[in-house]
């Protein structure tokens, strides 16, 4: 009999859950061992940081290389502007996160845990620090909390490790990957806070566990914020619970700035399932579901996002620095209906030259976002480039 266990279940979300309440409600954490990896394998748990990588595979890779000196890096950077779920987990269920980290440390034989929280998430930082104070002496000795710079790329795994090592949150060249050589040159497990919370629940219940996922709903919905949904339930259901979206024909930004646009009506039927979405050419990413109504211009919104992504570049790799900027400027010109000759063609060409040409996946993410925009807002792009008219405002005027 499989059971669904929830992160949000428990005391009210206006304050962090104390250790006493956490233990009373859920019992103690089982001791870690290689069997935990099998439990995670059976549960099919995938990471919630955006890449949706199978958790068991990652843990195995680190455990194999660990000589009792591995490091666990709890990734709570949450640099994605539209996402609020990691903050929520840290601020309200810090002991689920610390349990997950402890279990990971025991399983991969790590001596050290680093909790990496975005410096702009001050409440989460304070709560995690306080919660650590409630834990055992051994955990307190081997765990530290670090504040990550408030930059988008700071959450990337090699950037996080780089920061812990040298105070600079910029991605580094791989190979070697962090599971091979990371913090202080040791095998490092970088795991998202929500993922670790799920680990803490799955380990207590063993066997078949059906999962939940945290989504952040934003944009044109009446009730914005974090929702916990059953994995496999539809996006439409989640939108319904948020009270929206209201009118039809808009678009959805799925996965945040690192995800992509989807036609709203088509998206409603899709399941909240990272693997399914990936095979359909989309991405659940960090669970952002942002609604853009039909009356707003998708081209302008895309231009704004690309401009932001270009500004957030680490500026280490030519194709990212120059490519992203040129694309953002061209899309902005198209959005303002004053494109240069051939702007749209150039944008299409450049978008195909971004993937895989940086040290990290920042340009890839931007390329995927752009390509989804070119698909979903194809008509708008063409009208803006060729006819210099805005379809969106025409739709609003007609309505």
């Amino acid at each position: 009999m499989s059971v669904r266990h929830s992160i949000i279940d428990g005391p009210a979300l206006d304050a962090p859950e104390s250790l006493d309440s956490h233990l009373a409600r859920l019992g103690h954490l089982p001791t870690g061992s290689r069997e935990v990896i099998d439990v995670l394998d059976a549960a099919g748990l995938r990471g919630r940081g955006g890449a949706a990588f199978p958790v068991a595979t990652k843990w195995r890779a680190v455990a194999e290389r660990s000589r009792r000196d591995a490091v666990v890096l709890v990734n709570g950077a949450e640099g994605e502007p539209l996402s609020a779920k990691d903050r929520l987990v840290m601020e309200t269920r810090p002991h689920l996160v610390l349990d997950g980290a402890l279990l990971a440390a025991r399983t991969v034989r790590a001596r050290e845990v680093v909790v990496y929280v975005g410096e702009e998430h001050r409440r989460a930082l304070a709560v995690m620090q306080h919660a650590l104070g409630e834990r055992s002496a051994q955990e307190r000795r081997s765990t530290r909390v670090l504040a990550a710079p408030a930059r988008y790329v700071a959450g990337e795994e090699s950037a996080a490790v780089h920061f812990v090592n040298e105070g600079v949150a910029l991605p580094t060249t791989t190979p070697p990957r962090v599971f091979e050589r990371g913090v202080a040159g040791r095998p490092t497990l970088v795991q998202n806070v929500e993922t670790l919370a799920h680990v803490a629940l799955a380990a207590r219940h063993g066997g078949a566990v059906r999962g939940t996922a945290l989504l952040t709903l934003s944009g044109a919905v009446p009730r914005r914020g974090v929702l916990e949904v059953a994995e496999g339930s539809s996006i439409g259901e989640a939108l319904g619970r948020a009270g929206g979206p209201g009118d039809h024909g808009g678009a959805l930004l799925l996965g945040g700035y690192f995800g992509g646009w989807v036609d709203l009506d088509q998206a409603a039927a899709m399941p909240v399932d990272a693997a399914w979405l990936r095979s359909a050419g989309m991405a659940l990413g960090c669970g952002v579901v942002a609604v853009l109504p039909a009356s707003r211009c998708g081209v302008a919104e895309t231009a704004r996002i690309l401009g932001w992504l270009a500004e957030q570049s680490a500026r280490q790799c030519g194709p990212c620095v120059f490519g992203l900027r040129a694309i953002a400027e061209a899309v902005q010109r198209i959005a303002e209906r004053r494109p240069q000759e051939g702007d749209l063609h150039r944008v299409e060409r450049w978008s195909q030259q971004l993937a895989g040409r940086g040290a990290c996946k920042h340009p890839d993410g931007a390329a995927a976002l752009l390509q989804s925009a070119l698909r979903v807002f194809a008509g708008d792009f063409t009208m803006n480039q060729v006819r210099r008219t805005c379809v969106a405002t025409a739709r609003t005027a007609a309505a």
Partner: protein
Amino acid sequence: MNNTLLWYTARAAGIVSLVFLSAVVVLGLLARMRVEGRGWPRFLTAAVHRDLALLSLVFLSIHIVTAVTDPFTALGLNAAVVPFGSYYRTFWLGLGTLSVELMLAVVVTSLVRRWIGQRAWKAVHWAAYAVWPMAVLHGIGTGTDAFTLWSLAVTIVCVGGVAVALMWRVDYARRDPLREEKRAAAAASTRELVR
């Protein structure tokens, strides 16, 4: 062997070495600026820089061997190997010795760059900025005909060429749009780590 021949050969080889070395420095600076032309790809600038450096070594060897074996000055091997170890114009000659030894370090590290890595190679390559001025000063200080018209002319052209290339290179670096951006992006992502 005619002593005068040895003496002339030593000076001639020395001057040729200086001219080549100046060209090597200029080409090295141009290579970093990605200079190219029609029928002259970028990599060629770097390749000629390398080949000319090796050729300079040949002429330098001739210069050193003839200078050292010349019985008139009786400089001896010591002068060629130990910087400032010669009795004859100790300081100026010593500069030459030092210059050659540094140059050897630059050349050897360049030949094994793949094995020692970029950082080590670069660190030693900076010594090149010492090699060339020392060679120029050595030529002026030890050359008996350093102040003849033709000799001065050659020296001025060499120094002038390197000076122009150097100024161009500094300007190129200052005009690099990426430099300030990289610095700013790195600064935005850097924090003091409290250990």
